[in-house]
């Protein structure tokens, strides 16, 4: 992500320090992660210390300081999914991909995250991959779905 694009985003928010989180969210959603150079630019433009930006980047779940895989797997571990067996789905995915929640595999194929509720509790347990919802999962189906991704 080049500085021009970052400047555009900052200017859209009138370069106000109170818009810091909104600026970071836009960079995250466009770039999929927050490179150090980008954060340094934001720090200069908004006149906010880099330490505070990193505090925010590590506090909120939406931000990532490392690159993400090609496919984002989100396993819902909300209460409704939990009582319907989300843990077993998560275990299966961990075993198949070899990564823990919050991690990305070495080939940058999958990133695994747990989320607290996707709001489609009727379909629980739910797994979402690249925005596509897979509902009423069983451990056997989970394996079939995961193995389909390249």
């Amino acid at each position, binding site marked *: 992500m080049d500085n021009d694009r970052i400047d555009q985003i900052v200017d859209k928010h009138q370069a106000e320090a109170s818009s810091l*989180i909104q600026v970071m969210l836009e960079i995250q959603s466009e770039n999929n992660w927050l490179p150090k150079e980008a954060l340094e630019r934001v720090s200069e433009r908004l006149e906010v210390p880099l330490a*505070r930006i990193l505090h925010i980047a590590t506090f909120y779940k939406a931000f990532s300081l490392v690159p993400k895989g090609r496919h984002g797997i989100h396993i819902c571990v909300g209460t409704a999914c939990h009582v319907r067996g989300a843990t077993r789905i998560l275990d299966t995915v961990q075993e198949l991909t070899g990564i823990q929640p919050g991690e990305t595999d070495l080939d940058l194929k999958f990133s695994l995250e747990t*989320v607290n509720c996707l709001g*489609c*509790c009727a*379909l629980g347990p739910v797994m979402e991959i690249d925005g596509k919802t897979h*509902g009423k999962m069983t451990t056997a189906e989970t394996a079939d779905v995961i193995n389909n991704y390249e």
Partner: protein
Amino acid sequence: MPRINSPAELEEFRQGILSKRDPNKPCITLCSGSACHATGSGDVADSLEKEIEKQGLSGEVDIRRTGCHGYCERGPIIVTHPEEISYFQIQPEDVPEILSETIKKKKVVERLLYTDPGTKEKIVHESEIPFYKHQERLVFGSNGSIDPKSIDDYLAIDGYSALAKALCGMTDEQVLEEVKKSNLRGRGGGGFPAGRKWEGSRNDPEPIKYVIVNADEGDPGAYMDRSLLEGNPHSILEGLTLGAYAIGSHEGYIYVRQEYPLAVENVLLAIKTAEEYGFLGKNILGSGFDFIVKVHQGAGAFVCGESTALMTALEGRVGEPRPKYTRSNIKGLWEKPTVLNNVETWANVPLIINKGADWFRQYGTEGSKGTKIFSLVGKIVNTGLVEVPMGTPLKDIIYKIGGGIPGGRKFKAVQTGGPSGGCIPEELLDLEVGFDELTKAGSMMGSGGMIVLDEDTCMVDVARYFIEFLTDESCGKCVPCREGLRQMLKILTNITEGKGREGDIELLEELSETAKEGALCALGKSAPNPFLSTLRYFRDEYEAHIKDQTCPALSCRDLISFYIDPAKCKACMICARKCPAKAIDGGKSKIHIVDQDKCTKCGTCFEVCPPRFGAVTKISGEPVPSPIPEEERIIKKRKKNE
């Protein structure tokens, strides 16, 4: 776009919209909320458009993509108007038939109707289905009939009439008095009377004041706020503007989770159109009142649902709560008086102004007035959003509306109030829902999550689950929450793994007491609730885990084993093939055996074993029977004629 400058112009404009609408023209509404979207309502919408053209119906039938109808279990939902025939679980391939039969020939497509599970009777109209029949959908009802992206749809159902009435016919004080009289209490968790909160801000001499919509709905398993924002955003804007008028604020914020992209999209659009029409901005409806609204997206932190943390986040900082020496309605956002209410609370305000506090007070109990939307999820037949008057017994919600527990399992408890709430056991099912009633039972109203648990759910695990959630979401500012919860989680995890020790319960109780007394904000103070309420009603389960290393619900992975009953196994190979750990030994006509050393206890075999065999069982607290001798494992097939 017309700018509307007075209540009279609004009325004229509304009549204009209504006169252009032919009530007899066929209209298809399709639920397009996030939950239905997940079940494929986007594909159904595409198919509708194509098929309408193909069948030559262009211009003769309207399609309206509405917000959530609430009956998420049966989505996507289509309702055809004016007959109000409702079809459930619609797939793209059902669309041609709906158009050719129902729209063209006015015939009902039987197979897509709702079937009553008891009487097997087909039900045509949405309002007669048990799930809807027992509800009172005051706030949520419009969701199913309007397109959230169309302000005209909202105006057609009398939208912004409360705003016109208040701004041009009532003083700000009268608006406040009406809300105070209604005794509307905050729907977000605390249940603090909204009118009193408003009054505090209003009476403060500071000239700059703020109003905020708290749409940082973080409770897992609760999504009523999202559905309101997605499905009827103008009602929240109208309520917020009314609140701003009552306290004298000219700037408002909507703090919404970025995990709700559709809600963000619809709210931004609603603000833009409301500004164009003159319902927001300068000199609203010619009354001289100015008010603007900004949207701020949350970046994913549960604690930001707490009022002071939310305000800190709005200021562009890390969302940590601050001590409330002075309430936030006096010193809130940027140290100014700030009224923060939940989405559902704001959505109630236009109704109260329009129909009056007395009308509102006829619903509910002595202490809790009006209705409440609950998110009914978990082990329940009809998952969805339900709106009932306060005071409705839990039993009615779970059985009459929710349809009971699926799969013939037995009800165990209902968890209300989100992670800070508690579990209510079967013997209290007659309890009437209300703020004070739920608190008395050791739980709370919270934002309205209602998670039904059946006999397969381990209550110790439920407590562990919520404490784990809160440990993860604790911001780390104060010690009782940061360290106390971590230790509680450690002990609870040990118990579910069979490593519980004598004295653990007492230690947990002590830690709970400290967190309740010493934590800075509501997150920490209420965090021990899931443990305390499960201990209160299900102490025997804790003791079974600690003393006998058994899990009575057969749920805790480390305390159970999977065992194939040789008398029931038909050697069908299904479980052996599906086992991801290759832990099942067996062959065709050879009774299967689980190798306990290899078994990862994933439960796949238990899930896939055909119910008519039911050979795979879970055992806890007793040793797994040793495998039967090799020679007895061969099943001799009976001949067909035998």
